């Protein structure tokens, strides 16, 4: 096994609760090296004799990245390891330095589109997965001190926010919130739209 070096530069990329393990390829001229990945949660370390659990989707893979999102599904400290395999030869395990906790994921502001439909203020939010809620702040442009809030837990296409006064301009910004790690993203850029003017017919 010592002939096959362990994978190096093992790291975890985690954005918006999607977590990926990556490593540098092990180069063996004229041969296809494969890799296998295993994870260990705090429970396995403390209560299951430090056991490791294989990730079947990343067993004998030729890729140098593994989606570990499904397995990093508790807010505890995890360790990951990967080894190279070439036929019957296996390298030693390369293990992540330190621990990974999904609370460390980086959260980006939500993608938001604000729409005025007559007197109605609506928003379209990009779906970011079941872990995410959206906190929307909106206000009438001239009344920045009277900000209103709405929490949207499930994304559907056009979410109704509120009704607007005729002819007034309203502004909206949003941030995501992940209850599982009790953290929020920064706010999206503010978007403003104009409510339809009053269409009453004036008798002259």
């Amino acid at each position, binding site marked *: 096994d010592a002939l096959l070096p362990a994978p190096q530069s093992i790291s975890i990329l985690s954005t918006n609760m999607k977590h990926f393990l990556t490593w540098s390829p092990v180069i063996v001229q004229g041969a296809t090296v494969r890799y296998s990945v295993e994870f260990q949660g705090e*429970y396995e370390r*403390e*209560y299951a004799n430090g056991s490791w659990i294989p990730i*079947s989707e990343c067993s004998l893979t030729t890729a140098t990245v593994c989606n570990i999102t499904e*397995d990093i*599904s508790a*807010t505890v400290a995890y360790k990951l390891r990967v080894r190279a395999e070439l036929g019957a030869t296996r390298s030693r395990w390369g293990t992540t330095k330190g621990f990974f906790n999904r609370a460390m994921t980086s959260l980006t502001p939500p993608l938001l589109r604000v729409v005025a439909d007559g007197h109605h203020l609506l928003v379209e939010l990009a779906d970011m997965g*079941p872990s995410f809620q959206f906190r929307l702040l909106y206000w009438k442009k001239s009344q920045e001190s009277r900000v209103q809030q709405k929490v949207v837990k499930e994304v559907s296409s056009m979410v109704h926010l509120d009704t607007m006064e005729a002819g007034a301009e309203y502004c909206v910004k949003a941030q995501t919130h992940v*209850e599982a790690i009790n953290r929020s993203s920064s706010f999206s850029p503010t978007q403003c739209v104009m409510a339809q003017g009053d269409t009453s017919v004036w008798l002259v």
Partner: protein
Amino acid sequence: GACRVSMSMTEIRAGFTAIKANIQSRDPIRTLSILSHPHSLHKVKSSDRCCITHQLFTFYVDKVFKHCRTEDSFVNRKISSIANSFLSVRRKLGQCREQNNCVCGEESTEKFKQILANYEGLNVTSAAMKSLGELDILLDWMEKSR
């Protein structure tokens, strides 16, 4: 004060639902329950709820999950997910106990004794697999009494 613990019940539920049929099919004993008979969790007084919850999370972490290893990689991964979530919640409940917000009354002590007696009445693997198969009994009770 009250003990407020944020936990992602949805994730635990999803993990259990994914393996429920598999796990329950490994438990052939219809006539015995670890959690719900002879005393139902639904009869626990609200003042005892926090303590019973903490005892049950400790029970699952200390006694149950480690004896539920299967030949199925998918099932093992879901059990790991649930076990690590339980560990995270158990820690928060433990903090409540330290702050005396999770007092154990006589009833919860008696109820938990009954659960342990049910558990010890079976061989360890059967008891652990039956307990894991009854996770929805615990989750249903927790959600109802939220």
